[in-house]
């Protein structure tokens, strides 16, 4: 792979990396025919982010050396971010950025051609890996709202930077409401301030959702995409469904598109007093989720999903394409779970348990079969060859 980014696009690339760094610690780079894809997932697998830069974004773009298969790799986010650490400096001094994969040395070479003939070369070690794929389709979501990023930026402005989760919903009068979400406060002696922002329908370019629907997701992760969208002056769409199913945040322009897929809290997690404030409660036919997800063996779910992804033979297919038809998990062959390219969740980082279990829980909600493939987050199992 070899690609060359020139001029103002270097800063755009840098901003995208900053945005992705809000989500995960590893960056998956995959050169595709459609363009260069940069992806990441968080440690609890409750958030996935992806930017796809079209070939036109680059001055030169070569996905793979002719005759060879494209190399997919993952690198430490920290290392790649370090190249673009100071966006102000990048804007002022960098003229061109050349990224190439040197398979022999296992090095990703990022070379910044700067003013005055200065050249900075970063040799980042990478690991070959399989494609980080998430199967999701915005078209499957019942609800969508779209607004200029600026409007959404103003909408989250009253919330403290430290706020973890926020609830987004449609209130009476078709007003879009954002509300700070607080964890169960039974044990807390000092209650926290609750902030709510209400925006009229007129501020949205598209609002396809009925009153009463609401989802709760991680604001900090959302801010990663929002900051990028604001700086690029793009519109941001939010596609969502019932609580518990992941929400898809998307931006797009002629040269790039970005998707952040974030888990949302399920109804069993949301406290009813909070929900009632927004509007009448959700319809009764929403799927009740099993209570024991938190105790379920996540690993066995992952095995089922990875097999599912593999059935589609989708290794070479860009992850954002929609795979039609619901794929029931088939019985997996002997599978070595310990994919050496996939790090196990570090014991030191406690993932927000409800998010993690829910993200996968929505896949296996047995009470109803979703009309299309359930949103799945899976890495192709290397063992299936």
């Amino acid at each position, binding site marked *: 792979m070899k690609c060359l980014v020139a001029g103002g696009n270097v800063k755009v690339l840098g901003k995208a990396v900053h945005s992705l760094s809000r989500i995960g610690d590893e960056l998956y780079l995959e050169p595709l025919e459609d363009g260069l894809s940069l992806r990441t997932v968080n440690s609890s697998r409750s958030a996935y982010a992806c930017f796809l830069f079209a070939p036109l974004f680059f001055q030169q773009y070569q996905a793979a050396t002719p005759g060879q298969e494209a190399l997919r790799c993952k690198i430490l986010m920290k290392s790649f971010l370090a190249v673009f650490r100071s966006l102000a400096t990048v804007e002022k001094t960098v003229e061109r950025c050349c990224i190439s994969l040197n398979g022999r040395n296992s090095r990703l070479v990022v070379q910044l051609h700067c003013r005055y003939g200065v050249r900075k070369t970063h040799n980042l070690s990478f690991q070959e890996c399989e494609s980080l794929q998430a199967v999701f389709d915005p078209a499957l979501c019942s609800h969508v709202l779209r607004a200029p990023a600026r409007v959404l930026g103003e909408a989250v402005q009253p919330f403290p930077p430290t706020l973890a989760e926020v609830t987004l919903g449609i209130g009476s009068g078709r007003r879009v409401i954002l509300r700070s979400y607080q964890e169960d406060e039974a044990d807390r002696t000092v209650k926290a301030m609750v902030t709510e922002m*209400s925006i009229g329908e007129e*501020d949205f370019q598209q609002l396809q959702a009925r009153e009463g629907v609401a989802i709760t997701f991680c604001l900090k992760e959302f801010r990663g995409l929002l900051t990028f969208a604001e700086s690029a002056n793009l519109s941001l769409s939010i596609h969502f469904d019932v609580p518990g199913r992941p929400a898809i945040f998307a931006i797009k322009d002629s040269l790039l598109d970005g998707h952040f897929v974030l888990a949302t809290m399920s109804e069993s997690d949301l406290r009813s007093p909070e929900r009632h404030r927004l509007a009448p409660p959700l319809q009764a036919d929403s799927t009740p989720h099993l209570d024991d997800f938190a105790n379920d063996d996540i690993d066995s779910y992952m095995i089922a999903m990875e097999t599912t992804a593999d059935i589609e033979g989708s290794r070479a297919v860009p992850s954002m394409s929609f795979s039609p038809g619901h794929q029931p998990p088939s019985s997996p062959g002997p599978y070595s779970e310990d994919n050496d390219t996939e790090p196990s969740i570090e014991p030191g980082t406690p993932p927000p348990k409800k998010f993690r279990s829910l993200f996968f829980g929505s896949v296996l909600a047995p009470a109803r079969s979703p009309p299309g493939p359930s949103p799945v987050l899976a890495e192709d199992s290397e063992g299936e060859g």
Partner: protein
Amino acid sequence: MKFRAKIVDTACLNHFTRVSNMIAKLAKTCTLRISPDKLNFILSDKVANGGVSMWCELEQENFFSEFQMEGVSAENNEIYLELTSENLSRALKTAQNARALKIKLTNKHFPCLTVSIELLSVSNSSRIVTHDIPVRVIPRKLWKDLREPTVPDADVSIYLPVLKTMKSIVEKMKNISNHLIIEANLNGELNLKIETELVCVTTHFKDLGNPPSASEDASQDRNPEQMAEVRIDIRRLLQFLAGQQVNPTKAVCNIVSNKIVHFDLLHEDVSLQYFIPAFS
């Protein structure tokens, strides 16, 4: 108990925001006292505060276009609420471009002061931000601890120098010593002193002027050169100075020798009294 008030004037809103920012810097938790004519922000002297106390008073009609309150009872027509000061200043921060601001006492599973802000927006659509600030209603039996402090008979009263200057000096002194001696005389001289084993640093302010004293006898007997001093915890003084973002309209310092220093400030129409006891 009921409380509803509204601010529509931008200047009043900004002023109220500045007051709340100041309170947030002076006290982490404070008591808001609501009475028919006034609002008070109170910090009572407790061991936890280091004995520091604060009394801030503003006339409600200088701020609010609408103001309705109903106290605990007819004879006790007041409301005392304890809240985290930062919550109020954070809530008001979003009111920078507000068309109107409403505050009311509500009960949303627990008592709250709800601040509701209607924002001006580029398009004609209205945007409304609501902040529910949790409060604790203080029962009547505890009101006696929250009364307006009596102004002590000061040995010396003096006008303060520019607070920003004082703050930058005290900030540097904080690195050298935990205690500071503040002393002044009736000749318009004020000194800030720190003493350690290795070094003594004194900053002298001159020609500050003394306000006319209330009791003439005491001041006439006193030698104008004689300093009245109090040794205080330097961090308390710094906290007080850090809260003064704008130089006040009037700033007086009253010293009761070896007992207490009392700062009496006036920010336009808002009065602030701050007491720092002598370090024992």
